[in-house]
């Protein structure tokens, strides 16, 4: 197991190197002037100063020199001040947010993490639950309904469902508003008595014992969570169902039943753990899909996380910001793949022995 983990971790730097190459390659589509936003907040208007700026930050140097500068930053030989450098966590200046990209990410990240954490349990368990129910009731009405949900749900674009949910639960019924919190709750959150421990409003509200604020923030999260997770319910439902059906046909299940094990135990203890194997392989795709979904969901529900900032930057062609988000996304992904692979090797011994 340790061997497997080490082998797997050794791949990470290689993949990260590839990722930075790809992003740096995309950066080359920009003019040197636009790329100077990696190092300075504002570029001068007159041509002479621009040329000097390009010279100073080596934006006219060969590509490999530029790549190195992009990684480690540019050190001013006179003052010793270092600008830029993605390894230092400096992604340059965001034109759309008029602040350093890092500050914007720091500012917006907690909201997205809050959304993701709340969506985690429904995303992971919802589909499996439906799939088991469908498989246990094979060829009964509930099975047919689940199968229809499986294929129709998978065909339903998240932005269409999000708009429909807003139409029904906000515009029509007025129950679940978009945004992050209501105005009154926002005032409470902003007030000096309210202590922000994590910047995640639901968590902070509980820590401050403001249950009204907690409830308000949660109400704003319900529709985004549904929109984020139903796709994965549909997919996992299908995979769980077919895998469960196959497992239930196995001999050891018949053995368990014939020795008198209760049906509930057969399903939960004997069949489910084995049936879940193919579902775990979906995890990578699910994380990928959630990172995509967050962008759409945050835009539709006007939720102030990194996804909506990313979309705004992309629409206004603020490439420096957009590429910083893309880098962040792929870092999350590379990390997620490692975790998933190790988890999978832990569950299924065949993987680590290969």
């Amino acid at each position: 197991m340790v061997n497997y983990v080490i082998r797997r971790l050794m791949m990470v730097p290689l993949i990260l190197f590839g990722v930075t190459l790809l992003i740096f390659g995309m950066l080359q589509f920009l003019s040197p002037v636009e790329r100077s936003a990696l190092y300075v907040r504002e570029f001068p208007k007159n041509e002479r100063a621009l040329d000097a700026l390009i010279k100073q930050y080596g934006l006219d140097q060969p590509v490999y020199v530029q790549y190195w500068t992009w990684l480690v930053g540019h050190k001013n030989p006179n003052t010793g001040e270092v600008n830029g450098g993605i390894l230092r966590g400096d992604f340059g200046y965001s034109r759309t947010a008029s602040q350093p990209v890092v500050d914007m990410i720091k500012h917006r990240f907690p909201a997205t993490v809050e959304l993701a954490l709340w969506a985690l349990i429904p995303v992971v368990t919802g589909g499996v639950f439906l799939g088991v129910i469908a498989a246990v009731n094979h060829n009964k009405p509930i099975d047919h309904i689940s199968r229809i949900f499986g294929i129709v749900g998978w065909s339903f674009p998240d932005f269409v469902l999000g708009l429909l949910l807003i139409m029904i639960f906000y515009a029509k019924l007025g129950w679940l508003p978009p945004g992050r919190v209501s105005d009154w709750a926002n005032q409470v959150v902003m007030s000096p008595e309210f202590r922000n421990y994590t910047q995640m409003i639901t968590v902070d509200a509980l820590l401050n014992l403001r249950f009204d604020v907690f409830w308000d923030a949660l109400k704003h999260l319900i529709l985004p969570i549904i929109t984020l997770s139903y796709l994965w319910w549909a997919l996992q439902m299908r995979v769980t169902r077919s895998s469960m059906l196959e497992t239930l046909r196995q001999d050891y299940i018949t053995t368990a039943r014939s020795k008198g094990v209760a049906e509930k135990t057969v399903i939960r203890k004997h069949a489910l753990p084995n049936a879940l194997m193919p579902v775990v392989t979906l995890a990578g795709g699910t994380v990928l899909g959630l990172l995509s979904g967050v962008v759409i969901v945050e835009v539709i529900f006007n939720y102030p996380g990194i996804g909506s900032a990313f979309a705004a930057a992309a629409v206004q062609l603020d490439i420096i910001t957009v590429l910083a988000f893309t880098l962040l996304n792929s870092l999350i992904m590379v990390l997620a793949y490692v975790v998933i692979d190790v988890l999978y090797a832990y569950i299924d011994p065949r993987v680590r022995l290969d």
Partner: protein
Amino acid sequence: MTHEDTDTLEHIGRKPPNKLEKWLGTETYRALKGLVTNPVSLAGFLLLGMFILVAIFAPVLAPPPFPDDPYTIPRDGYNPVPKPPGTEWGVRPPPLPFWWEPLTGKDNWIHIMGTTSGQWDIYYGVVWGTRTSLFVGLSITAVVAIIGVILGSISAYYGGAVDMILMRVVEVFVAFPFLPAAMTLSAILTPVIGRGLFAPMVAMMFFGWTGFARLVRSDVLSVKQREYVLAAKVIGVRDGRIMFRHILPNAIYPTLVMVSMRIGSYAISFAGLSFLGIGADIGYADWGQLLAFARDWMTQLSTYWYIIIFPGVALVLFVLSWNLVGDALRDILDPRMQGSR
């Protein structure tokens, strides 16, 4: 064929192959037969046929005011308040389709599906958007599938260092979540190749091929092990011929399922990009564009339901049709599923 042969065939419940089956090969024949007898795939084909008809007859269903530029949705003034379905055209109505008067007895053109904010006609957008979706879905999938098949089979057939390098490249690409990555590249390409369909399409192709490459690789790897491939190698058949005549035809079916599913999902992603404001100019006939207009009236969507319902239903049914066909195909091709339906 001797009498005994037919006997055994009937014994195991199979009719002797007819002419068509002989000509197509057993596997292809079974797949095609399954597709036309399976109610799920039939429903998919019916829906699909409907969309293709709408796409072909778009100029008849919704005659464009400027035939040179049919993909720009005609608009009826600039009022930000949407108009409900059935409202008459006010400013400069487009030409009346010939079937309108005999069918309804009226000689004035109406907004069949209402208008969005800014008075873009939803009906025109939905009808001409069918062409956009078909074009985008088919062309992206075609390019991506071809790249994937070529790279995947090279990787699997040669193995070793080639395989190692190609698969690491794939791993780099799958570290990018599809939609944000496509948004990024499309935002970068827009100033280079201009606003329009092509920036997002190229971006989606660039990040889309990995799924096909991995699928084809694993299928080719399993077929490669079979003895007839070894036999072909022994008698000195060239690499290319083994690959394209002997291995690929036997490994291609899962790819076909994926093609069908991907056409729908690329249509979704493309509409998603236009929904977010990336891609073609405002007013281009595309379902995602129409849906994006709903964002102007979030608080009153229950009044202006038609902005999301018509393009939304079109998009969902379009994707559903491809998924139904793909789903049926998968069930037919999966031997484990035989007899369980």
